[in-house]
C-alpha cells in the first residue's frame, strides 16, 4: 500500500512537471514569436481613404500628391489612385519582413504598417516582390511556403533590378515594431544587387548608412541601404537616433 502511494505521488509529480514544463515552453515560444501565424485577414486591412492617406505620407507631398497609390484589398493590392510622376506609394504589411533573424518576429504582425513611396525604377523592379509575397499570403500559404515560392520567383520571374531604384519612408505614421518607438525613423532606402555591405560603408561606427535586413539574399538577391532623412514627410524634425 505504501509503495502504491509513493508511486502515485511520483507519477503525479512527474505528470505535473511535464505539464508545467510544456506550458512554460509554450509561453517562452509565444514570447519569442508573438505572431506565429497569419491573423484573420481583416486585421491586415484598412479603411481605404485612410490607407491612401497613409501611403502618401511616406514621401513629402510634392512627390506623393502625383504618385500612384495602391491599397490592399482581399485579393491583393489594387490601384486606388492613378499617378503622374512615376512614383508609387503603398503601405506594406508585416510579411515584407525578413524570413529569418531577429526582425522576422513581425512577419505576421497585423499591426505592422510600412508606408513607402517607390521611385519609378523601384516601382518596376522592387514592387513586384511585394505583389508576389502578398499574393502567396492571401492564398493562405505558410511562411516556409512563401519562402520557397520567392526562391522560385527569383529564378523565374523577378524583373532585373534597375540602377537608382530607391524609396522614401518618411511617414510619421509608420508602425514598424511593437517595441519602443513604433515609427522608427524617417529614412530613404536604396536598392542594390545583393553585395557586401562594406561597399557602402554600412553599419560601422559613425556611418549614417545602415543595411536593412530585408531581402539580403534570403531569398531575394537585393540589398537595401538606408540613410536617415532628418525630418518626417510633414516637415517636422525627426531627431536621428544616437549611434
Amino acid at each position: 500500500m505504501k509503495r502504491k502511494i509513493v508511486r502515485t505521488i511520483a507519477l503525479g509529480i512527474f505528470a505535473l512537471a511535464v505539464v508545467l514544463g510544456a506550458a512554460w515552453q509554450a509561453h517562452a515560444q509565444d514570447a519569442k514569436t508573438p505572431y506565429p501565424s497569419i491573423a484573420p485577414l481583416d486585421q491586415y486591412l484598412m479603411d481605404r481613404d485612410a490607407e491612401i492617406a497613409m501611403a502618401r505620407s511616406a514621401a513629402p507631398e510634392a512627390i506623393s500628391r502625383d504618385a500612384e497609390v495602391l491599397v490592399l484589398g482581399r485579393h491583393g493590392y489594387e490601384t486606388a489612385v492613378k499617378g503622374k510622376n512615376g512614383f508609387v506609394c503603398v503601405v506594406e504589411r508585416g510579411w515584407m519582413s525578413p524570413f529569418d533573424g531577429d526582425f522576422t518576429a513581425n512577419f505576421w504582425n497585423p499591426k505592422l504598417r510600412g508606408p513607402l513611396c517607390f521611385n519609378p525604377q523601384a516601382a518596376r523592379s522592387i514592387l513586384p516582390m511585394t505583389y508576389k509575397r502578398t499574393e502567396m499570403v492571401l492564398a493562405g500559404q505558410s511562411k516556409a511556403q512563401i519562402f520557397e515560392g520567392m526562391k522560385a520567383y527569383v529564378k523565374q520571374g523577378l524583373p532585373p533590378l534597375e540602377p537608382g531604384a530607391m524609396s522614401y519612408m518618411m511617414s510619421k505614421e509608420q508602425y514598424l515594431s511593437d517595441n519602443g518607438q513604433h515609427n522608427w525613423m524617417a529614412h530613404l532606402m536604396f536598392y542594390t544587387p545583393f553585395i557586401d555591405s562594406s561597399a557602402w560603408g554600412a553599419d560601422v561606427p559613425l556611418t549614417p548608412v545602415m543595411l536593412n535586413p530585408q531581402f539580403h539574399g534570403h531569398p531575394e538577391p537585393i540589398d537595401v541601404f538606408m540613410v536617415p532623412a532628418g525630418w518626417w514627410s510633414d516637415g517636422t524634425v525627426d531627431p536621428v537616433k544616437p549611434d
Partner: protein
Amino acid sequence: MKRRIIGTIAKSFALVVVLSATLQAHTQDDKATLYERMAPIDQYLMADRNAEIAFARTAAPESISRDAEVWVLGRHGYEIAAKGKNGFVCIVERSWMAPFDDPEFLNPDQRLPLCLNPPAARTHLPLTFKTTELAMAGLSKTQMSDSIKAAFDKKELPVPEAGSMCYMMSKQQYFGRKYGNADSHLMFWFPKTDDMFWGAGLPGSPVYVHQYSPQPITEFIISVSKWSDGTPVPTD
C-alpha cells in the same frame, strides 16, 4: 563766402562720388576676376603630405577611412600616398572639380575631401585625375570643358558605375567664400538623368541634385546630421 562754402561742399561731394565709383568698380573687378586665372600652383598644394593624408581621411568616419587608399596632390597631379584594404579611396579635391560656371572655380583655398566607395573609385576618380591634369597644365576653363566633353564623347572617361557613392563628412572641408564648410553629406553619382529620378529638389525632399555639364553625370546629395568625428552638424 556762402557760395565758396557750397562750392567746397560740392567739390567734396564730387570727390566722394568719384571715390565711391572707383571703389565700386574695383570691388566688382575683384569679384569678376578674383578666381578667373590659375593661381601659382603652390597655393593649391598642401605643404605637409601627412596633413593632406589625414585631411583626406576626415571625409568619412574613421571606421571606413582608416583602411582606405589615400591620394595626395603633387606638382604633377595626384599620387598614391597610402595603400588601402577596403576598396574605398580618400582624396582632397580642389576647386576645379566645381562646376565650370562657379565663380570660385580656381579658388586656391578650396579643399574638398571625399572618400569614394569602390564603384565610385573606379569611375569617378578618372574624372578627378583628368580635370586636375588639365587645370595644372594651365588650360582655360573653356579648353578644359571642351577637353572633358571630348573625353566623355570618345568614352575615354567612364560614366558612373551602378552604386557609385562617396562620403563628404569632413568638418574641415572648405567650399570657398560662399559656402564655407557647407554641411556633412553623402553623394551618389549616376549617368545623366533628370532631377525627378530621386524626387530631388522638391519641397520637403532631403535629396538635392547637381547636374554636371558638360560631364554626362547627375549627382544626388543627401545631408546627414553628423560630421565624420561624430559631432553634430549645426542645424541653422
